[in-house]
């Protein structure tokens, strides 16, 4: 017996099945109202953490930039001459 052909016939019959229709509107609204009323403690913590991280990143970037300038300044003449020779 071709089992897939048989499966197709059963599936064709199952297509017309009437499903139960529960009324969920009251439950949905209750859940949504509950979700809206619930406090969001994680939100304040996240904003603070993100702001602190962003500030730390800015300070690191500024310190890095200043350090690079300080380091490169004595070699500025060398770098300029080397680029003039076409080595760089």
């Amino acid at each position, binding site marked *: 017996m071709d089992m897939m052909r048989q*499966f197709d016939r059963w599936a064709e019959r199952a297509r017309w099945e009437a499903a139960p229709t529960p009324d969920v509107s009251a439950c*949905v609204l209750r859940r949504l109202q509950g979700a809206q009323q619930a406090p969001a403690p994680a939100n304040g913590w996240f904003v603070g953490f993100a702001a602190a991280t962003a500030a730390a990143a800015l300070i690191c970037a500024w310190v890095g930039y200043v350090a690079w300038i300080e380091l490169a300044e004595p070699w500025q003449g060398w770098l300029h001459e080397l680029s003039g020779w076409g080595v760089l």
Partner: protein
Amino acid sequence: MNHATQETSPAVEDRQDVRLAQDGDGVAYARLVHRHQGAVARQMWRFTRDASAHAELVEEVFVASYLSLRGYRGTGPFEHWLRKIAMRTGLAFWRAGRKRQEIKPLDESFAARMAEEPTGYSAGEAGELVHRALATLAPRDRLVLTLMHLEGQSVAEVAGSTGWSATMVKVQAWRARARLKKALEQIAEFGSRGAE
């Protein structure tokens, strides 16, 4: 054109209620739930046949759709958008069930019933049998066969609702049918051995 009829069409009502619900109008969203819960319930019945799990799934679909309602741009009918959310919710439900290993193995009684003439049975009994057969498959295989065989969707429609390409849908359906065939043949062989 009759303007009165046009004004009260479900699509227009949906658009108005979606706009109000996006601004936080709960009553408008309740109207949307009331209008679409029958279609969603029919769709979710393909994902579970347990009455309490089914009601929870339908509820879950509407909660998920409310939470992502701001992302709905109104380019297509609300019903189509909702069907996609329902499909994703159902797929997640199957995946969670598979992790919990809630799949009942097919037995001899299943093989005997499958070999019978479907016309002698109700659509509900046929649905139960097909549901059991499809439950042996992995969620993606099960989804593509459910959409094509139980929902009667074409390849293009399945591609539209899943976001897969048409080729992907064809390949997935072909592989799913091959796996289902193997499982059904194994159980039929087991059943015939048992009868001997």
